[in-house]
């Protein structure tokens, strides 16, 4: 289901009331000219899945946090920030999740530069 970024919190809240109270996964895809954020929600008692997605401009990368409604979004959002450089608005903790990353860029973006192969062996 396509939504607008500004409607995300409202959609998540109203869907939660309708029974979609389980968050399966939050992820993103880099389509170069735009990025898509995808939220997988599930109604556990009826076994129905629902995907919420919206597009973002690469120059304006942020999503609002949905932790208030789904605490399980915590690590997914941090992963998104680390892997795609998508800013999560409304969050206090900014610690990277994997935190071993000392290079530049966001690894899962298509413009990410791989390390040069080491060839002098």
């Amino acid at each position, binding site marked *: 289901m396509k939504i607008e970024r500004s409607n995300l919190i409202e959609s998540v809240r109203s869907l939660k009331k309708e029974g979609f109270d389980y968050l399966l996964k939050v992820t993103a895809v880099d389509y170069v000219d735009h990025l898509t954020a995808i939220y*997988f929600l599930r109604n*556990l008692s009826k*076994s129905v899945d629902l995907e919420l997605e919206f597009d973002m401009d690469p120059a304006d990368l942020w999503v609002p946090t949905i932790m208030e409604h*789904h*605490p399980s979004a915590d690590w997914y959002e941090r992963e998104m920030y680390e892997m795609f450089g998508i800013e999560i608005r409304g969050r206090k903790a900014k610690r990277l*999740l*994997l935190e*071993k990353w000392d290079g530049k860029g966001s690894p*899962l973006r298509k413009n990410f530069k791989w390390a040069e192969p080491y060839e002098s062996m």
Partner: protein
Amino acid sequence: MAITRINVGPIHPSTHGVLRLVVDLDGDTIVKVEPHIGFLHRGVEKLVETRMYMQSPPYMEKIDYIAPMSVDELYVSAVEKALGIDVKERAQYVRVALLELQRIASHLLWLGGICNDLGQLFTAFMWVFRDRDMVLKLLETATGQRMFYVNMRLGGMVRELPEGFDEKTLEFLDYMEDRMKEYESFIEKNPIFIQRMKGIGVLSRKDAKEYGVTGHVLRGSGITYDVRKDNPYYVYKDLGFSPKHQTQGDNLARYRVRMMEIRESIRLVREALTRMPGGSALGMPIKLISPNAKNRTVAVSRENPRGEEMMYMVADPQRPYRLSIRAPTFINLAALNHMAQGSKFADLFSILGTLDLMMADVDR
């Protein structure tokens, strides 16, 4: 209230991999646990983008090295769905039988691990290794490999089941049923085991939903969701699968769910082998793969031994454009802080043990 901060890991015998925990204690009571992950991050999702579809299965298996076939199968299913390939009927039965055998092996290793974590029952650890090895030997006769099978092709399997596989497996299943009675009799009557499991690490039904936990942790908290039942794939519907659950939400409930799951897997393997139709189970040779992806985006879910694993794939003609993996242990570990709060420090490892972590899966 003076808070003591203790560092656990990243190398620690009870974390089953490279996991660092920063634990805040008030006396001996846990106030907060903060897992630090990423020591085993290999960038699987990025590497997959650089390889052709069927170059990836061997690497996928390393995501979960205790139950490699389950991840391999999930990835191949995602590719099948993207390319619009149907799985042969016999191959569906073969896959179910092998996957359930894999689940038995994985659960057995976990059982040994948790008994070992509790410090008293090294006997169990030795016993499960004996039985797990029998499963691995069966899988070896079926696939040629003891641990990393790479046994899936699009639409089927790499090779047919060998002669005599059915008889050997049925014999093993009978043996295993007796062994399960034995395990339960000496584990559940052990007061140390019960004391360290009962009422520890409670996760209520509501919290299980909120924290998005999955697999045996979810079912241990009274929610019966199981992908094999609620979003059935292959022939699970025909085999009459019913999910196992407990309502207490503590360590003991999670242990009991897993023991019941082993019994259910034994039944499923037996059922699949006896009902297996004739014909061929062979999949497509790799070079015949159609380069046209029918579905641009696919999401496939499987009930893996550690919980629900999902792959979301954006397909390009030759290779995945993006593969996003929902790792079951990743999200179960995220709930650890909530489960451990208020417990004693020594109980942290029994809680961690019942989560059945796989750090390669958490970090990817």
